[in-house]
């Protein structure tokens, strides 16, 4: 083996000792393959810029996003107010970047809940089954937005409620993915081997099976963030998600339900709309890139 490797390298004029022939770490392979996916890399850069704008919002925005200035209502873009002001005189640019904080946080936080619940139940379902899978059937029958609207009608709107609702109502997808992978792993030799030497179920699940579902979960989590951002924006657009004065891209779009704002005050809603589309598009590209980078069959 070593002889063959050194021979091959010698043939191409490369001198390598045995120590230098290394096996590339899996995450390195993934990074190398991800970098080949040009759209995904560009999208990652875009998302990092958006995240930096959102996190650095207090440094970038010259105005307080919820400072009401009734003398400067519905102003157009100017040097002072880059994206103009809304109908209560709040600075649209400040609101857009601060809304980025809220939208990205809702996206990430609800995915953490969704993946946590989904992965746990999926792992259990891979070993037991039936009840959990039947409940995912019921939940997947409905478009999430309709279920969330129904429940939001009872719980009322709010930032944390929105996060909890999105997280707790989108777990069936990661659950099904983890279950499918567990069912596959259950019959593989290394799991049988672990069982034969007497490893307890919990250890098999954590140490042997779980590392093999991480790739599925990473891809699903990425796409889940995009889906959660869209759900939050949709709910807030209808006035049932994040409530003003907390800015979110969705509730910034809400003002466009008024036809005169839609017609005359373009800058109040367009930046939020553009932000949503580009973030979602970019996150989906990153998801595709990760899927290809992590798939061992490619």
């Amino acid at each position, binding site marked *: 083996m070593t002889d063959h490797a050194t021979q091959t390298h010698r043939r191409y004029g490369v001198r390598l000792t045995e120590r230098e022939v290394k096996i590339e770490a899996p995450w390195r392979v993934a990074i190398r393959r991800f970098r080949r996916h040009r759209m995904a890399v560009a999208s990652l850069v875009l998302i990092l810029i958006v995240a930096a704008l959102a996190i650095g919002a207090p440094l970038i925005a010259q105005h307080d996003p919820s400072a009401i200035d009734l003398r400067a209502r519905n102003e157009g873009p100017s040097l002072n107010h880059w994206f103009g002001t809304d109908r209560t005189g709040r600075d649209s640019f400040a609101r857009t970047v601060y809304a980025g904080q809220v939208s990205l946080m809702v996206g990430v936080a609800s995915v953490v809940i969704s993946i946590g619940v989904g992965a746990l139940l999926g792992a259990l379902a891979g070993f037991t089954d039936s009840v959990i899978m*039947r409940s995912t*059937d*019921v939940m997947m*029958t*409905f*478009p999430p*937005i*309709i279920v969330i*609207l*129904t*429940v*939001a*009608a*009872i719980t009322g709107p709010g930032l944390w409620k929105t996060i909890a609702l999105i997280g707790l109502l989108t777990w069936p997808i990661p659950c099904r993915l983890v279950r499918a992978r567990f069912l596959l792993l259950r019959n593989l030799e290394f799991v049988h081997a672990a069982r034969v030497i007497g490893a307890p179920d919990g250890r098999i699940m954590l140490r042997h099976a779980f590392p093999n579902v991480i790739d599925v979960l990473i891809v699903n989590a990425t796409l889940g963030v995009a889906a959660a951002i*869209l759900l939050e*924006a*949709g709910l807030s*657009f*209808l*006035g*049932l998600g994040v409530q003003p004065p907390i800015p979110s891209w969705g509730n910034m*779009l809400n003002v*466009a*339900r008024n*036809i005169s704002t*839609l*017609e005359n005050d*373009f800058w109040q*809603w367009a930046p939020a*709309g553009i932000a*949503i*589309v580009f973030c*979602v*598009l970019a996150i*989906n590209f990153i998801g595709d890139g990760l899927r290809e980078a992590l798939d061992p069959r490619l």
Partner: protein
Amino acid sequence: MRFIGRDWRDSLGRYIQRRILINIPLLVVITILSFLLLQATPGDPLNAYVPPDAALSEEQRDALRERLGLDEPLPLRYVFWLGEAAQGNLGFSARTGQPVTDVIGSRIGPTMLLMVTSIVIGVSVGIVLGILTALTRNSVLDMALSSAALFGISVPVYLAGLVGLYIFSVRLGWFPTGGYSTPGDSSFLDVLYHLVLPAGLIAVQYIASTMRYTRSSMIETISQDYVRTAQAKGLPFRPVVLRHAFRNALIPIATIIGSYVPQLLAGAVFIETIFAWPGMGRLFVESVENRDYPIVMGLTLILAMIILMANLITDVAYGLIDPRIRYD
């Protein structure tokens, strides 16, 4: 070959029976969930059953409560509620006092009109574009349309609605900015004039994904041997594409037509709100805003039934189109 002639029909019958049976427990679970959610709403549950303007003495209310079984334990209350619901009594609107079934009934028509139109637009435009891009693979046209489709899938329906309204109604003035018809004029043409833009905007995502499905499905079938054989026999291009390739490419496309109904309903919620379209989606949002729980729950139940029906029809259609599909 097992599925030939009678055998095939028998197995199709069994398949349809199975599909129907699978949906029944799903429907039961959904009614239980709707009932539990209704129980979780604040306020006296009796109010949902009495028109708000009815003046009742405390004795009358107690008598009514007993008659409706509202003081029984939860499982029994569910059975009574289900019995009432099955007879079309979903209670009364907390706001207007009209029976829930009447309020919702008047909204089903406009929503169905909107949905059917957007399905027709989505399927026809999507399939035509899909065939076009499959036949001109890797051309400029294909690349432009394919990236437009990728964009179309990522644009949420509320944003498509706002931008569409802004461009086509506000700026260009081609379509009305909302409503079902011009007051005093409810002719078919006027409704159609109001219908085209909202239906087209709900269909944006639908067009994009139908196009992508059609494209990949067509590319796959075009490279099959029987298509090459047909061409080698000297048949002209068009019949080969339409009769040989397209009919087989239709199989995977047919399955997504029905599977889109839930998403179209979700789209209707937004588009009806934006365009003031008097359908179930707008009623849903208004009722949530007004905390009109009997209406919200009634709508949830009816939307669930529509979705289950659509799933059933999709499954059956799939079984009819593709004889290979059998889950025994």
